[in-house]
């Protein structure tokens, strides 16, 4: 069907005037960094293209005189005119604009926002992202995305994302095209993305292009910077909790570049020695506690340009969180009067808790023909969780001139993780001037390592080996194979209609069972006027993995598990309608959506994250359905001194678990955990001059849902061991109580001092400026409701030096 449509359009193409391909890369003139999503179009016909994820564009134009224009946010437009006679390669280098003028990027703004067939998609410029006020001064991609319509945050401060009524495990988070499993640091208060290493972020909330699959609710496509090909740059920054360094530059000028970023929190570096000092003072010599918590991120990218046709990229991400403690205690005892007795005992306890991601990817870009671009990727990604304890004691004593010694030690370690090897090939093909075809295939081998427990116990008495025990339990693996095939066509049917038609086919094999899914995707744009369009879309998505997680906070014990014979894949149908308008640098949009989710998982009543492990997780979940609908309003201004956006979402998200034996809430529908009726975000940034820019964010949303037992009563009498009736609560409905509405104002002011060698930037961030008591949790206590707020007001100073 799809190829028939493409073939039929070729008839039109053959009948038309002879056409040729114009192709090439669009880059930053200064650094040669490729620009993703830059517009390249012919000004007379307004036929155009947008650069792909590697900065490559292809245009098919009729021969003759053409006037080509390229534009990108923050860059001066480029224009050239020539006589098109053959296939032509034009690599375009755009110069950075000294000031973001409204005129500079008009073309780009119209192309993507109004004229593109894609909807429910938002690109967040990283330059803008860095000006958004941030908690602890740490610019955070996920937190910035939470400020967009259709995206809800979890609990206060957390990095959990709930897109259009979906769960936090329904977001596909890609770093240079490779999935990251756990994007949270510090229980979700920070995300794993270091903004210094990021070039571009795109959020897809619906109408997913066919090239994406595997999650129901969103795709967050993050690309790391390639690195400057000609000059060395970098920056060093110090914030309240973390220090960051970023360096980029050429390895071989014009051929090979690198970009490396490192971030680490340093609270533990100060706190651990202080803790040791205090405990030594309190507990005496030989006794100490040394411990702390930190997280770090390392991003590395190396980019080598063999020729205009071939490029190789190596991306590496490594990020870990670690909690550690070293406890030493010492006891000495002597009694020379009654007994000739001396004793000395030393105890140690080492505790390490680590979790983190590793991603390594090697990608090869090859221009097979000017109108056929290929990207081949080989990647490895892992998420691992380790908990280890090493406890031991050495005792020495002397009694009646006889010396004895004994030692005991116990080592315990828990390991779990996911290890993926994947290979994929993606192709961008422009067969005709009105078709942009993308197709590709992906294969991923997943290894799910359930929680493995290793125990080693050893005892020694006066040099004699005593009790010795060594065991490893549950050292098994679940292996699964996931394959994806996709094809999509961005088809300019006419000046008025544009269609994005796609098909994604995937399989998932686990436990000798193979699931198949055929997922159609379609979106249509109707251009009403040059700056007004209507769009409609439909997407079917399938998901083969689930996150076992507490609803309250993100924890390292959160586990990804695959579908099984009993737990079948989740799937969703989503339809959306929208109107898009552009006026004088302002983008307006309104989108309505309805999403039906099938086979979603929830924990059974009473399941606690304290008791979750992979061995019996299927007994603790139930399967049901969900649906979400809403309307999103969005106004954005990306250019000029004054930038920002305003988003408003009205939304509903409900769940129904009424399958036999899998009932929740008595089999009746109930609101999803993060169902919120209203959500408003206002993000404003203003650049006074080269020295000062300020930003403000105000968010308001309906309060979170919680479940409370409004009525108490006595259960069946005579049940407890003291013969009293137990008091139990009656919960009429899950998520039956709403916390008070959430709102806060964040402010930032950045002061820039530019020198010949670099630039100093001082930032003052204030999170929750008017100290509103936003509820983190509400607990009934002594006949009252006690509300706990965790971040009343957080002023932060940070410093950055750019060179």
């Amino acid at each position, binding site marked *: 069907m799809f190829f028939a449509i493409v073939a039929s359009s070729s008839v039109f193409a053959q009948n038309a005037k002879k056409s040729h391909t114009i192709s090439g890369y669009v880059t930053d003139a200064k650094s040669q960094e490729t620009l993703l999503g830059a517009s390249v179009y012919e000004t007379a016909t307004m036929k155009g293209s947008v650069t792909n994820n590697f900065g490559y564009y292809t245009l098919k134009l009729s021969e003759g005189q053409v006037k080509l224009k390229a534009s990108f946010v923050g860059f001066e437009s480029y224009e050239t005119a020539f006589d098109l006679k053959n296939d032509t390669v034009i690599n375009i280098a755009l110069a950075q604009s000294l000031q973001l003028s409204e005129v500079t990027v008009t073309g780009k703004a119209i192309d993507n926002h109004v004229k593109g067939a894609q909807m429910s998609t938002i690109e967040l410029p990283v330059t803008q992202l860095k000006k958004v006020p941030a908690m602890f001064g740490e610019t955070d991609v996920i937190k910035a995305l939470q400020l967009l319509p259709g995206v809800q945050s979890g609990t206060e401060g957390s990095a959990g994302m709930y897109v259009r009524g979906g769960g936090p495990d329904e977001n596909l988070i890609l770093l240079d095209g490779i999935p990251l499993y756990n994007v949270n640091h510090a229980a979700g208060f920070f995300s794993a993305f270091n903004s210094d290493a990021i070039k571009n972020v795109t959020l897809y909330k619906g109408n997913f292009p066919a090239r994406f699959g595997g999650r129901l609710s969103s795709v967050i496509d993050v690309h790391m910077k390639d690195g400057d090909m000609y000059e060395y740059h970098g920056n060093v920054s110090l914030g309240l909790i973390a220090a960051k360094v970023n360096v980029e530059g050429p390895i071989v000028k014009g051929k090979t570049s690198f970009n490396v970023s490192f971030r680490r929190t340093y609270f533990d570096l100060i706190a651990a020695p202080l803790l040791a000092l205090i405990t030594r003072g309190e507990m005496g010599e030989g006794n100490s506690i040394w411990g702390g918590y930190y997280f770090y991120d390392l991003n590395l990218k190396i980019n080598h340009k063999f020729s205009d046709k071939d490029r190789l990229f190596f991306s590496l991400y490594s990020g870990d969180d670690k909690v550690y403690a070293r406890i030493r205690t010492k006891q000495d005892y002597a009694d020379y009067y009654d007994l000739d007795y001396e004793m000395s005992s030393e105890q140690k306890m080492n505790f390490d808790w680590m979790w983190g991601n590793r991603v390594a990817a090697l990608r090869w870009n090859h221009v097979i023909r000017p109108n056929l671009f290929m990207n081949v990727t080989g990647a490895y990604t892992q998420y691992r969780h380790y908990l280890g304890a090493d406890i031991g004691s050495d005792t020495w004593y002397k009694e009646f001139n006889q010396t004895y010694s004994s030692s005991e030690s116990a080592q315990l370690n828990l390991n779990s993780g996911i290890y993926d090897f994947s290979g994929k090939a993606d192709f961008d093909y422009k067969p005709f001037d009105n078709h942009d075809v993308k197709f590709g295939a992906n294969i991923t081998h997943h290894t799910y390592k359930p929680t493995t427990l290793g125990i080693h116990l050893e005892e020694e008495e006066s040099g004699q080996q005593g009790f010795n025990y060594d065991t490893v339990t549950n050292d098994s693996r679940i292996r699964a194979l996931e394959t994806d095939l996709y094809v999509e066509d961005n088809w300019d049917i006419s000046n008025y209609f544009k269609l994005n038609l796609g098909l994604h086919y995937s399989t998932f094999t686990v436990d000798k069972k193979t699931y198949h899914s055929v997922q159609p995707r379609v979106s249509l744009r109707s251009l009403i006027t040059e700056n007004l369009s209507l769009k409609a879309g439909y997407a079917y998505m399938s998901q083969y993995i689930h996150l076992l997680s507490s609803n309250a906070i993100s924890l390292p014990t959160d586990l990804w598990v695959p579908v099984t014979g009993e737990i079948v894949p989740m799937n969703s149908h989503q339809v959306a309608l929208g109107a898009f308008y552009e006026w004088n640098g302002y983008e307006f949009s309104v989108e309505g959506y309805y999403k039906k989710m099938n086979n979603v998982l929830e924990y059974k009543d009473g399941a606690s994250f304290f008791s979750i492990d992979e061995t019996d997780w299927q007994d603790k979940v139930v399967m049901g359905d969900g649906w979400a609908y809403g309307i999103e309003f969005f106004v954005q201004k990306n250019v000029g001194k004054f930038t920002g956006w305003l988003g408003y979402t009205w939304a509903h998200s409900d769940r129904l678990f009424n399958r036999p034996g899998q009932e929740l809430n008595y089999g009746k529908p109930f609101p999803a955990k993060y169902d919120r009726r209203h959500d408003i975000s206002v993000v404003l940034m203003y650049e006074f001059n080269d020295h000062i820019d300020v930003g403000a964010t105000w968010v308001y949303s309906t309060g979170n849902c919680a479940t409370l037992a409004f009525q*108490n009563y006595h259960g069946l009498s005579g049940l407890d061991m003291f013969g009293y009736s137990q008091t139990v609560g009656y919960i009429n409905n899950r998520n039956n109580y709403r916390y008070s509405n959430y709102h806060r104002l964040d402010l930032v002011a950045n002061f820039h001092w530019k020198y010949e060698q670099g630039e100093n930037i001082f930032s003052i961030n204030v999170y929750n400026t008017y100290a509103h008591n936003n509820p983190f949790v509400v607990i009934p206590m002594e006949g009252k409701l*006690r509300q706990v707020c965790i971040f009343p007001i957080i002023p932060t100073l940070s410093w950055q030096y750019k060179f």
Partner: protein
Amino acid sequence: MKMKKILLVLTVLLCGMASCVKDVEFNGEQSDPLLVVNGVQQAGKTANLCIEKSWFFLDSRIDFRVKDVEVDLYVNGSFKESLQVRDSISDYIFTYCEGQYELCEGDKLRFEVRSSEFETAYAEVTLPESPTVISFDTVSVDYENGTIDFAVEIDDPAGTDFYNLCFYNALDAEYSMYSFYSEDPVFANPLDLGADELMGESSDYYGSGLYNLFTDTYFDGKTYTVNFTYFFWDVEVFEPFVVEMSRVEESLYKNKKTTEEYLENDPNGIIGMFAEPVQVYSNVENGVGIVSGQSKPVTMTIDLFGNKKLHK
């Protein structure tokens, strides 16, 4: 002046930081009390119900009493009797209702509870048949550690069945403070597993009182011997006690199980923050509570002077 400004700013900041916990008004819908109906009907005995009303979770002054209670009992579709209503028996404030008709195994009971304060509440229950007990005996008595090991062999019919083991003082049935222990897998509760299992510990069951329920999941349609241990060390060793084995209705099992889960993860408590809420099972229409059924038990009375008897 400058110092004043600094102090002012610091005070404002400190107030902001200090106000992390505060009492807030309940902003939900004020819910009305519910009619609470509880009772386990046992074949061979008369019907009985405890009736009271629930109270708002933030209320400190509580009135449990329900006005003008009337209870009608229907057996196998026909009106049988109106239960006698007795207010405030013993230390409890609930209304206690008792019938005169001796209930039989297989009876389908329907209770209608009326009060001037509430809509009429209904509950239905079918009394199960007694379990087929092949043998029921003590295995060993350990005076040093204060334990008696029991074994009960049952012949389980096909289909899901629910059983109960209980202990009570032979002289005072209300007194049920007896410790019960079993490693038998029938008592394992899937929701209890997790951390203990990871640490290599078994999911041993410790129970007490009148209800130690289990299902036939592990032995459906087969004969099976349930092993359990009674601790007598801490209780009055010279008083005889009764061990009962009976079959119960599913509703009782569901109610007991969800009650235990609820108490472990009270949503109105701190632990509840980290657990999914539990809705306690109820089979009372227009009310809350549990009206369930129990078969005639197979009973063994024990005293530590060696007297024991098995009768059905």
